[in-house]
């Protein structure tokens, strides 16, 4: 069984982004970019399934600008076998990405598609579900445990009240939550090996997908600033402030 793992290049999670002064977006020029943390977990899970022998090939896919090749090389250094870049300079929204992935699913026929549950830049949490809908596959979102047995996959999911377990018939779409696994560090020899792995570049037109954005971003602003707080010397002063000044208890 093949596994397809979509990965996204995003602003590194430690960077505190700045909103551009003209309100057109956030400033990502000269900012450190990395693989979306949830996608690292997805790649790790796919590679572990391969190490267990239930998966034969792990294909990493990224959609976006040419620099996404670096993200794909990282995925290959973790253990993905080959990469596919769908290259475009157009702004890609989740629906467009889901359509691009759907075209690749039709071509590659993977048994599982493992995505991150959300990207930490647009915070949408849509692509996996949309892909499942377009490809008419079952979905298990927010996975914290994945077990493949024959043509069934059992997934434990993190939901609001606790955990829930589903059984899906493959092919299926899974999105990862934080506690699914601990992604491994890439080692230098593996980074070197990843450079030799196959990386194909295709265009959205080759896949017959129209990626025109459906949502227009009118403006991006900074969130309202909180007023400066005060430090209190002791617990008594804190209780006094909460009771008499803030009046919240």
């Amino acid at each position: 069984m093949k596994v397809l793992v979509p990965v996204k290049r995003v602003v590194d999670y430690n960077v505190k982004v700045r909103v551009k002064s003209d309100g057109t977006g956030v400033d990502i020029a000269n900012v450190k970019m990395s693989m979306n943390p949830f996608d690292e977990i997805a790649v790790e899970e796919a590679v572990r399934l391969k190490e267990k022998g239930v998966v034969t090939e792990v294909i990493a896919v990224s959609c976006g600008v040419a620099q996404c090749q670096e993200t794909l090389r990282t995925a290959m250094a973790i253990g993905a076998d080959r990469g596919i870049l769908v290259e475009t300079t157009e702004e890609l929204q989740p629906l467009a990405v889901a359509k691009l992935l759907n075209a690749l699913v039709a071509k590659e026929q993977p048994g599982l598609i493992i995505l991150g549950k959300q990207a930490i830049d647009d915070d949408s949490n849509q692509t996996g579900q949309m892909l499942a809908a377009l490809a008419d596959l079952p979905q298990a979102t927010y996975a914290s445990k994945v077990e493949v047995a024959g043509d069934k996959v059992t997934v434990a999911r993190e939901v609001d009240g606790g955990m829930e377990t589903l059984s899906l018939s493959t092919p299926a779409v899974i999105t990862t939550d934080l506690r699914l696994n601990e992604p491994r560090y890439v080692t230098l020899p593996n980074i070197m090996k990843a450079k030799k792995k196959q990386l194909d570049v295709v265009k959205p037109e080759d896949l017959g997908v129209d990626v025109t954005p459906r949502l227009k971003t009118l403006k991006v602003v900074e969130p309202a600033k909180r007023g400066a707080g005060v430090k209190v010397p002791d617990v008594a002063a804190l209780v006094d402030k909460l009771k008499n000044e803030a009046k919240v208890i």
Partner: protein
Amino acid sequence: MTALVIAEHDNASIKSATLNAVTAAKATGGDVHVLVAGENAGAAAAAAAQIAGVSKVIHADGASLKDGLAENVAAQVLAIASNYSHLLFPATASGKNVAPRVAAKLDVAQISDITKVVSADTFERPIYAGNAIATVQSTDGIKVITVRGTGFDAAAATGGSAAVEAVAAVADSGKSAFVGREVTKNDRPELTAAKIIVSGGRALGSAEKFTEVMTPLADKLGAAIGASRAAVDAGYAPNDLQVGQTGKIVAPQLYIAAGISGAIQHLAGMKDSKVIVAINKDEEAPIFSVADYGLVADLFVAVPELVKAL
């Protein structure tokens, strides 16, 4: 122009996140209908009919809808979607699970986690872990939306008298099956709806200490207990207590953060709280930059003292 709110419910009652979504739906300007899809969910449908401002409840009842499987619930929504201009889901685990599936089948973009309705096609939503607020306009015919509960007041749960219309439940997709559920036992207020939240971080050191220190404070204040990712990952607290970008988004009247450094990802989940109190040993901790009241102290001393002083 009519908006449909997909109710979150447990077959017997309506979950509070639905009430916030109803308020958002009203703001889009038309009538508001509510879909209750479940099995033996008559009581939930009756409760939905009581919500102020709802003009019709659509009740789909069948075994395929019992456990809220995304494939079946999405199909149920799609069966009636063409009657509506807006489809609104609460931005909860189940709403976020189903909404994009519906949007993709309708070939429309979905607008996630809205915090404000500017007009019928324009909405505000936070991006980059809440470090920027984007105003987005949808060019699609049907707007599929998830609503961040803390962005909208709850509609009154009583005072309405909507008609309940029964519709046939969709057939089971046969592609997924529900196996089981493990519910975290919790007799405290629900985290996302609580007026007061006390939250613990890695500094608590162990699950025992977490319970020993945080529970008396929560009891005293009638508060819900939250946790940082570090505390959850270390196993001090169950994961559905996690507050942050990837956990629950909360905005209580009072948020007390004990032993939490205040990483961007945690702040994303709580910085809209009315009053934030930080208790931390490290006076350089980023949490103090958002705290209204900061106490630089060892939480193992300060929290029990606080319990005594309340």
